[in-house]
């Protein structure tokens, strides 16, 4: 057995799904809907996303040049209480790093980077090596983007892990924040941001 001894035992509801970090960093409320209220509406984006994942997720290993690729790697961190999967882990010249596949293009939010960073943190725990970078493959741009795990990104990731754990255990609903993120959010028809604003701002008589 390698790796660090568990820092503590995690209760099942304290374990944070790594994918939830991505949702939370995008919008805490969205994370609440998906992981607490279990309201989930598939839309074109999420469906395509899962097809993409199905291809990547056929757990397999194969050598490409000097690079070892392991697909669909189950990740568990006793240290941070994280659980999830990495689409792809590559080992090249003795370096280990995660690669995450995303449909679409890079967004303005740190959400994909945070998810990748958490995967790297788990891999560090498991392999005992420092991982300085990883990649995100954005399907619509057809290329990998290098992501460096800077101290800032790591700190932010830790914060988000904390926040998600609090959300999952308290089950408190985060406030709705209507903004540009709502545009691409598949849960808009459930969350109803603009409708809520209109109701709050109109008088009873106006109806």
């Amino acid at each position, binding site marked *: 057995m390698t790796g660090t001894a568990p820092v503590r035992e995690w209760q099942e509801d304290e374990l944070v799904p790594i994918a939830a970090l991505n949702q939370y960093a995008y919008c805490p409320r969205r994370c609440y809907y998906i992981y*607490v209220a*279990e*309201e989930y509406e598939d839309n074109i984006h999420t469906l395509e996303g899962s097809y993409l994942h199905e291809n990547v997720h056929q757990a397999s290993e194969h050598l490409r040049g000097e690079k070892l690729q392991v697909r669909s790697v189950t990740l568990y961190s006793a240290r941070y209480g994280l659980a999830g999967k990495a689409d792809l882990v590559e080992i090249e010249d003795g370096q280990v790093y995660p690669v995450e596949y995303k449909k679409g293009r890079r967004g303005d939010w740190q959400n994909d980077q945070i998810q990748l960073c958490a995967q790297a943190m788990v891999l560090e725990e498991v392999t005992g090596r420092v991982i300085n970078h990883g990649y995100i493959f954005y399907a619509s741009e057809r290329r990998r983007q290098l992501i460096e795990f800077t101290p800032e990104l790591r700190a932010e990731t830790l914060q988000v892990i904390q926040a998600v754990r609090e959300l999952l255990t308290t089950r408190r609903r985060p406030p709705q924040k209507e903004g540009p993120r709502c545009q691409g959010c598949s849960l808009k028809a459930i969350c109803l941001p603009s409708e*809520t604003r*209109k*109701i*709050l701002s109109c008088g009873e008589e106006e*109806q």
Partner: protein
Amino acid sequence: MATLYITEQGAIVRRVDERIIVEHEKEVLADIPIIKVDQVVLFGRVGLTTPVIETLLEQGIEVCFLNQWGRFLGRLQPVQGKNCLVRADQFRAAFDAGQATYLARQFVLGKLKNMLNMLMRARREGVSLPEEPFLEINQAIKALPRAENVDGVRGLEGAGSAAYFRVFGNLLKKEFQFYGRVRRPPTDPVNSLLSFAYTLLAKDIASAVNTVGLDPYTGFLHKDRYGRVSLALDIAEEFRPLVADAVVLSVINRGMVVQDDFEQELGGAVKLKDDARKRFLAAYEQKKQSEIRHPYFKYRATYRRCMELQARLLAKYLQGEVDKYLPLVTK
């Protein structure tokens, strides 16, 4: 996505691959891909095989059981998300006299305003109507804010609806007679259609309410009675004139259903014959899928979506996210 209605007595529903097959004595009556269906409604003696039940539940498709005469018996409900948080808020509100009265008032307000608008529209279209029902419904609307409890609200609802139904018959352009609302059992064709339409509406709103995580059986205006979908009936109030009454009027006025389509039972109850019932179900379904321009949100939405919206907005009110519940009122 649509509702699959099965009215054939003795029919069997089975699953073949990803399709739903309805058979009757070896003859295939319907063959529909499962992804096209989001609700199945069975009338009377229709059989379901276990594999089809399993698949429907897995796909989150609910099954409603009505008896052969169209009375709602119950439903087969797919597992729900763990949104018990919203239910807790709903139960709290149901026991809070102030909140219950407020919501009861809003449901009735929506219903009465829609009734009033319906009569006004008919008058604009040339139907001659006396002045009294307009005054009476308006009076009931004005008195609503002063109703101190749910019973008071119910009284006003009764007064307003009675005024509306006194002249509802004037909106019929065919030889049908209608002198007022008769329930349990309906003894004339128009009442029979109204009752049937209300059952279908309550069933649809119950499923909308359920999607949102609310408990369909705990209402505010309608007292909890065992087995009654009280909350669905509450939200249905505002939709009754808009959807149910409107469908009844249109099938009659367009001659889609005629006197001969009804038969009288021994006990005096009047019901639709099978063929006409299929036409009526199709008309109801079409109405549900028809689009309106939403009066507050200004986008186009089907009535079906509006039902879910109202359920979601009610949940938001119960969870304290918005400070009012606005019934859907259309001009």
